[in-house]
């Protein structure tokens, strides 16, 4: 079945949004949507793409895989040129067959699992992302822990229902142990938990050099606070899920020796980053987090591909996306590799008070 | 005139349960309401208590129209009911049930005195005052229901088949108690299957048939009426 071409004629380019806007992942989905909306606003104000305005077709997938498929099918039927989202790897994988069949490109900003862009039949032709995959991010942090922090032992504190968390933990463990480190224990929490003391009591007993907490900011802020309150002093490490002002707000004065891998550091002086942060703050009156930034880049990434393809034909956009070279986004300068992962460097950032401080940069 | 029902119509959904009931109760009387199963006796009492919506007609109590009053307000006026099937509070103790009977009162002394009165009338309740009411036997529950109603010191007491399920010795007691309660100044509207007994203590009576009053008169007259004898007194 070939794709509908209804979007070609009009004066707009229809872009589908399939995000987690309600239920448990609503925070992340809505954050992503905020980023996308800002980008669309800027693009349209600047005259659009190929002289056409971007029009978003926003749908809520209720944080559910089947609903994500449902919505994607609807969007495909409505003739969108590309789909942005979903936010999580599982939901992207659920949608993957739909976009493949309908030959529409999909860009996600936060589905990090390695196999999101890889199926049993090779690379998923229509799937792209602006975020790192788990191996790269988890591995980078492992290297940082070993080399910069001279850590020899680690405990991992993982969110049990999240593929992101489990994915990062897996690659952290692989790299950490294969380079001589030792994982003393793996402990688990659940998203929406608020009390972590029992497991932290246990973690305290491990006396590990570092604690790797690949999670999202909501719980991470609380974990850091409670850990420090209980007298756990080891550095706490994480991924781009740490990038939100919620972390210092929740953790307050307890924030100490907290490092995480990210796309940029808030103290980055790159004008692109500075401008984005300013624009975001003006529109939403808060600091952008990783979800905002990655989704913002999603939209520009797509716009860039449409421009280069000089067409709104999804197939051509797909090809353009696949051949992206040195696209300059907020979250880094990105090239798409043959596995549809963005090649961009990762930075390690430390939370110092409510400020992020650049520590080091790790190239792929 | 203490209580007057004027042409009362009540429906349960499509069922026309009361089809124009008119009756009167004078201060100080025992009036009995007899009739077959499903005639509408309980419906009449519940309607007076404010539990049913009146479609048509009116209820006047001491000159006051109470047709659309809420049950608690009606209790406040001094109309209390011993409901059919006892309706005691099974998960509460006997004592708590009695205390609830006095829910609207605040005269501590009076309540205490009435409680003693109830215990004197029903020594079995004193014996079991700490027991959960739900585990009482049927008869014990009936005593509790009557005792509970007395605790509100009603001016008009509506009693729905108070002798149902009671041992003969207690049935006699109950009727004696009803008489006694009446003599100490409480007006009583009594619904009974045990028509013979009811008519023997009542001043006046009404016969109810499928939602209508078919006969009325002094209790003696009714008891002697052959029609009543055949239908309600077992020939």
């Amino acid at each position, binding site marked *: 079945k070939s794709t509908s071409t209804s979007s070609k004629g009009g004066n707009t380019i229809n872009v589908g949004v399939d995000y987690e806007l*309600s*239920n*448990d992942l*609503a*925070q992340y989905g*809505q*954050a992503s949507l905020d980023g996308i909306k800002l980008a669309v606003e800027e693009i349209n104000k600047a005259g659009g793409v190929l002289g056409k305005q971007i029009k978003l077709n926003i749908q809520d997938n209720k944080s559910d895989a089947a609903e994500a498929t449902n919505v994607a099918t609807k969007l495909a039927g409505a003739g969108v040129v590309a789909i942005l989202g979903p936010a999580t790897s599982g939901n992207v994988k659920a949608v993957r067959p739909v976009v493949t069949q309908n030959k529409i490109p999909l860009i996600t900003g936060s589905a990090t699992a390695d196999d999101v862009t890889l199926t049993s039949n090779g690379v998923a032709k229509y799937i792209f992302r602006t975020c790192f995959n788990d191996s790269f991010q988890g591995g980078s942090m492992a290297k940082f822990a070993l080399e910069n922090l001279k850590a020899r032992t680690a405990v991992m504190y993982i969110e*049990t229902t999240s593929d992101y968390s489990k994915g990062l933990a897996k690659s952290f463990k692989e790299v950490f142990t294969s380079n001589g480190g030792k994982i003393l224990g793996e*402990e*688990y*929490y*659940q998203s*929406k*938990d*608020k*009390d972590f*003391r*029992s*497991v932290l*009591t*246990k973690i305290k*007993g491990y006396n590990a050099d570092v604690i790797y907490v690949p999670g999202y*900011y*909501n719980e991470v*802020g*609380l974990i850091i*606070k409670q850990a420090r*309150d*209980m*007298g756990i002093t080891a550095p706490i490490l994480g991924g781009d899920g740490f990038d939100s002002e*919620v972390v210092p*707000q*929740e953790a*307050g004065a307890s924030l100490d020796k907290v490092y995480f891998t990210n796309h940029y550091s808030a103290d980055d002086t790159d004008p692109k980053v500075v401008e984005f942060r300013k624009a975001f703050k003006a529109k939403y009156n*808060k600091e952008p987090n990783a979800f905002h930034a990655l989704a913002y880049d999603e939209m520009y990434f797509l716009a860039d591909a449409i421009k280069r393809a000089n067409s709104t034909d999804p197939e051509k956009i797909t090809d353009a996306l696949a051949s992206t070279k040195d696209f300059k986004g907020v979250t880094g300068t990105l090239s798409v590799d043959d596995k549809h992962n963005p090649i961009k460097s990762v930075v390690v950032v430390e939370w110092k008070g409510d400020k992020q401080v650049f520590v080091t940069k790790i190239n792929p | 005139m203490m209580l007057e029902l004027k042409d009362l119509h009540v429906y349960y959904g499509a069922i026309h349960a009361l089809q124009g009931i008119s009756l009167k109760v004078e201060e100080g009387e025992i009036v009995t309401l007899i009739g077959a199963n499903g005639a509408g006796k309980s419906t009449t009492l519940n309607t007076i*208590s404010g*539990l049913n919506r009146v479609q048509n007609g009116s209820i006047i109590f001491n000159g006051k129209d109470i047709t659309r009053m*809420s*049950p*608690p307000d009606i*209790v406040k006026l001094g109309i*209390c*009911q011993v*409901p059919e099937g006892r*309706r*005691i*509070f*099974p*998960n*509460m103790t006997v004592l*708590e049930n009695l*205390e*609830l*009977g006095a*829910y*609207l009162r605040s005269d501590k002394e009076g309540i205490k005195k009435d409680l003693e009165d109830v215990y004197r009338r029903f020594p079995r309740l004193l014996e079991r005052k700490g027991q959960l009411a*739900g*585990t009482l036997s049927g008869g014990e529950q009936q005593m509790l229901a009557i005792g*509970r109603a007395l605790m*509100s010191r009603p001016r008009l007491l509506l009693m729905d088949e108070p002798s149902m399920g009671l041992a003969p010795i207690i049935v006699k007691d109950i009727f004696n108690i009803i008489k006694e309660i009446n003599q100490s100044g409480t007006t009583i509207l009594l619904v009974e299957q045990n028509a013979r007994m009811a008519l023997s203590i009542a001043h006046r009576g009404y016969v109810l048939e499928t939602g209508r009053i078919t006969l009325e008169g002094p209790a003696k007259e009714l008891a002697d009426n052959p029609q009543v004898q055949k239908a309600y007194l077992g020939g």
Partner: protein
Amino acid sequence: MGVFIQQLLNGLFLGSIYSLLALGYTMVYGIINLINFAHGDVYMVGAYVGFVATTVLHLGFVPSLILSMAISAVLGIVIEKVAYKPLRNSSRITLLITAIGVSLLLEYITMYIAGPDTRTFPKVLVNHEYTFWGGQISISNMQIYILVISLALMVLLQFIVQRTKIGKAMRAVSIDKDAAQLMGINVDNTISVTFALGSALAGAAGVLVGLYYNSIDPLMGIMPGLKAFIAAVFGGIGSIPGAMMGGLLLGMIETLVSGYINSNFRDAVAFIILILILLIKPSGLLGKNTVEKV
């Protein structure tokens, strides 16, 4: 040993939060036999009211708490009047569905107004951590507050329900509404009072827990609501000491499972224990084994 004691304390404090919610839950539950799914969301609204009171109105802790309890109480009454009262004679499962509707409404209206983001409270109460036993055991003042407050509320509620007139009316209404009316009890008012009380408790819990963890969001009520429901059932439906005990035990079980068995299976093991206990005591720990008299 120190660790074990710390774990027990962790469980106790976690449990006291469950208890705090379960108390209000069980009150409402006891009287209209309704699984008030919206209870967790009233708790959330209470937290948001506290947030607005402290950040926007710059009120102190106590005024914020009172404001939040008051607004929650009103919210509780309104919910009851609008959503539950018309359905009093319907099946309990129907009411459950309505409660879910109310719960979704509260969650997503809040999300619509305040956004989905996590908010943090300003420090109107300072957290002090006290350590004992050479740092092996640590307790914070907030934990003590919450435990003490929930214990005090339990005693207070138990007193109200068992000893006061309105409490007896509540119980009578819960057993037989018509018979209660015949006693002169105003059923509507009694139910309103119950909802007000239960919801005020939820509001208080919202502020306290919001302050303690310093993190609130529109969906924050779902899990605690569910846990409180479990705790209330566990302790015996309608039993106030039962709710307290159910909450504490649930907290303890969760903590000990994460601490000594496997944090991954925390909820699974907790549920297994819960089900086993229920199988032994089918009406909860302190629930009256109401053998129906045949």
